[in-house]
């Protein structure tokens, strides 16, 4: 079979993690890549193109896998893609398997599994430089002859050997033969067990399984693939019992047969082909490893590295974020008034431009974090960090790799959630995703600063204020740990997930590779979450803009004029004349702030806030706080601007604003049982802070969480965090009211 020049050659890239597969993919495709999702799961799918001299090659980068074995839907996509089960992804014409040249014995396991697929195969022995450095000699010609496929040694990180691979692909485009590997020879019992599964699957579900797919169901501890093809699980179980019985009769444990047979074959394949030097050349890896995983020095190094990562995400990103913020405001200022229609003008300025700004504001932190993650992973340190921290996290269903996402979430949950991709175990990853938004991110800080500065510090002094601020940062973590434990204990009641982590050899990081990963992280955020966050901002704009009464301007203006006239002992026409001339800026500003407040109060959002206020009454919230809480749904820090608007100061206030602080202290209940009493007391301030510490007031987090897992998990997180926040706020208010 050969591909016609007009039709692109479909090539799938597969390999164990840490083999440099993605580096090779980047070398082969350059910047011509597209990011998407595999159908039905949240595993990222990256495809790339290479315009070869004689046609087009389309590459699909499959997720890193040690084996074709599938114990979860995420893992099943590799087999499904290779067997052409996805409608939108063509079955590959050729598979490029990337292996670590210095550890062939283990890496040939996946290769041996691939020979079972009836797909053309080319083997890439990557990290060839390590083999040369260790002076290991491998007889490539013999190995190629035994496997009956071409083999290419490469060092993708140094761009060595790539041209030969490209040449081979180009040759196939011109009509060269596709290399079919020599398949593994199964014992008769396994062949009959496979046939039995194929027959029963056809009878029960009408689906034709390829032998390799049937063997996945036969060998894997969990028959995930059966569910994917719509085979009734009970029917599958009964067929499986029978098939495994055949395997057992032949003297194999059904769950061990595959490993034993493949490794037996690999021993034969490699027999006499690898020669190690008489004196093995030791890399410094072991000594370094001993130091970096030492119980004192290792931990010290770990915390130093993590502190550095956090500081960088937190402080390096700050100036760039301010710059983006300033740029957005400048653009808004330029665009304001360019459209004469006030609704469209506001849509552009406060909806679309604000939305675009709210998306790219996350890029600096994401880029910096992904750069660090790339370095940590490429050097091999990430696995050591996970090793050091595992015990601390494993008891509540997280694992050692949860540390980086949780720490990062203290700066911002968006990069934090994205960094959970480093966690291989799907359940530990999901648990980390579900609790990361509880970490006190930097957007909560303005809320704490405003309320602690206005109410706690004047009453109790700076020491208590500082302690209070620290306590609010710990609150989320203190709540997150038991929640993680409960999720695993009561929700994921299924089998405990094993933790088997490969410790890759230490390697020098490559700048090009790290920068690429950084770029890929930003690209993935923009492609997968950007548009949704933008849409959410526009939706919130709509809810706080409409409905608008055209007469409102007149009536608010009349009120303001009357008010000023009384205060200044002037007549109303006199005040109106000053207004018309625009002579008193303070008065004009007063009017503008009043009309903004009026519009917000009467918008859908404002009306909704007034309606649901009774729900928040037990926490001591009045309707203004409630509207503030609702309006800050897209981003927590918005509550400052909203309170500014509602207290007639305009939206340009920040948490240090003395006007806002004074207005908050002076605010009184307008009606109801507490009419005339101050709205903001210390218990109310504490309740608001507890609410913000625990709630999910961040549209971007909600979108990213859904993109990294599923919408149902996003909804669950929203519900549980809001419930928790409400309970926390009510309890805080009711308890502290008794003492303070």
């Amino acid at each position, binding site marked *: 079979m050969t591909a016609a020049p007009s039709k692109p050659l479909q090539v799938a890239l597969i390999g164990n993690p840490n083999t440099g597969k993605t580096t090779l993919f980047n070398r082969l495709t350059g910047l011509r890549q597209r990011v998407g999702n595999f159908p039905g799961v949240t595993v990222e799918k990256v495809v790339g193109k290479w315009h070869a001299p004689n046609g087009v090659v389309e590459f699909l980068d499959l997720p890193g896998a*040690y*084996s074709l*074995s599938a*114990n979860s839907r995420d893992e099943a996509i590799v087999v499904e893609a290779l067997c052409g089960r996805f409608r939108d992804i063509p079955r590959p014409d050729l598979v490029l398997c990337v292996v670590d040249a210095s*550890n062939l*014995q*283990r890496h040939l*396991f996946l290769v041996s599994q691939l020979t079972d697929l009836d797909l053309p195969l080319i083997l890439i022995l990557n990290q060839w430089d390590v083999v040369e450095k260790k002076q290991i000699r491998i007889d490539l010609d013999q190995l190629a002859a035994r496997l009956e496929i071409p083999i290419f040694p490469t060092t993708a990180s140094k761009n060595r050997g790539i041209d030969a691979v490209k040449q081979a692909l180009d040759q196939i485009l011109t009509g060269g033969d596709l290399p079919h590997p020599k398949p593994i020879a199964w014992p008769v019992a396994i062949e009959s067990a496979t046939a039995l599964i194929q027959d029963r699957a056809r009878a029960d579900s009408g689906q034709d399984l390829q032998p390799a797919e049937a063997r996945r169901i036969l060998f*894997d*501890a969990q028959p995930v693939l059966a569910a994917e093809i719509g085979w009734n699980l009970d029917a599958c179980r009964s067929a499986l019992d029978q098939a495994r019985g055949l395997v057992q009769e032949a003297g194999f*444990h059904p*769950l*061990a047969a595959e*490993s*034993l047979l493949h*490794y037996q074959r690999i021993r034969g394949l490699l027999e006499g082909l690898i020669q190690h030097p008489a004196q093995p050349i030791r890399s410094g890896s*072991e000594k370094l*490893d*001993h130091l970096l*995983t030492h*119980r004192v020095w*290792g*931990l010290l190094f770990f915390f130093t590295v993590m502190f550095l990562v956090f500081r960088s995400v937190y402080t390096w990103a700050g100036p760039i974020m301010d710059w983006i913020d300033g740029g957005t405001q400048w653009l808004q200022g330029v665009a304001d008034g360019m459209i004469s229609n006030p609704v469209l003008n506001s849509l552009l300025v406060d909806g679309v431009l604000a939305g675009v700004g709210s998306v790219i504001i996350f890029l600096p932190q994401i880029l910096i974090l992904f750069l660090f993650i790339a370095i940590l992973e490429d050097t091999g340190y990430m*696995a050591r960090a*996970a*090793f*050091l921290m*595992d*015990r*601390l996290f*494993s008891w509540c269903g997280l694992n050692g790799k949860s540390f980086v996402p949780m720490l990062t979430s203290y700066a911002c949950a968006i990069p934090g959630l994205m960094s959970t991709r480093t966690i291989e175990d799907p359940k530990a990853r999901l648990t980390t995703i579900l609790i990361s938004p509880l970490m006190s991110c930097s957007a909560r800080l303005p809320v704490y600063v405003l309320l602690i500065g206005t109410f706690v510090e004047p009453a109790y002094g700076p020491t208590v204020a500082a302690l209070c601020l620290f306590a609010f940062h710990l609150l989320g973590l203190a709540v997150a740990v038991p929640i993680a434990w409960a999720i695993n204990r009561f929700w994921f009641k299924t*089998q*405990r*997930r*094993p*933790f*088997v*982590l*490969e*410790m890759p*050899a230490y390697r020098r990081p490559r700048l090009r590779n790290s920068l690429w990963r950084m770029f890929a992280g930003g690209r993935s955020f923009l492609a997968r979450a950007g548009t949704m966050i933008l849409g959410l901002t526009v939706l919130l704009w709509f809810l706080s803009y409409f409905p608008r009464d055209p007469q409102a301007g007149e009536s608010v203006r009349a009120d303001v004029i009357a008010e000023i006239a009384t205060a200044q002992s002037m007549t109303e026409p006199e005040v109106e004349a000053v207004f018309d001339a625009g002579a008193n800026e303070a008065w004009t500003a007063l009017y503008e702030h009043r009309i903004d407040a009026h519009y917000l109060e009467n918008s859908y959002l404002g009306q909704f806030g007034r309606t649901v206020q009774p729900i928040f009454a037990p926490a001591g919230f009045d309707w203004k706080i409630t509207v503030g809480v609702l309006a800050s749904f897209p981003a927590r820090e918005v509550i400052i601007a909203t309170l500014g608007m509602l207290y007639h100061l305009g939206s340009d206030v920040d948490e240090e604003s003395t006007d806002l602080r004074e207005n908050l202290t002076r605010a009184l209940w307008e009606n109801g049982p507490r009419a005339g009493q101050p709205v903001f007391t210390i218990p109310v301030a504490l309740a608001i802070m507890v609410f913000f510490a625990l709630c999910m007031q961040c549209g971007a987090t909600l979108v990213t969480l859904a993109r990294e897992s599923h919408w149902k998990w996003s909804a669950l997180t929203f519900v549980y965090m809001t419930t928790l926040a409400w309970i926390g706020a009510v309890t805080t208010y009711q308890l502290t009211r008794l003492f303070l």
Partner: protein
Amino acid sequence: MNLGEGELGNTYTIRSIACDAPGAQRMMHLGLLPGSSVKIVQVAPLGDPMTVETETGVLSLRRQDARALDVDPLDHP
């Protein structure tokens, strides 16, 4: 004995594997098979997990998962 009870610095030969244990299949895919030897080269500060050197690479295992591996200690010269 099983590998979960193993001590730092010792080498063991795998006698048999409890194939049904969670993680057993993963370990077998990574080359931990009856007859192969494992050396415990590092134990994490809190006693778990541990790093083992095998013929097919260096792995980090939790003791609980390592219990699936029935091992014989190798006599040290």
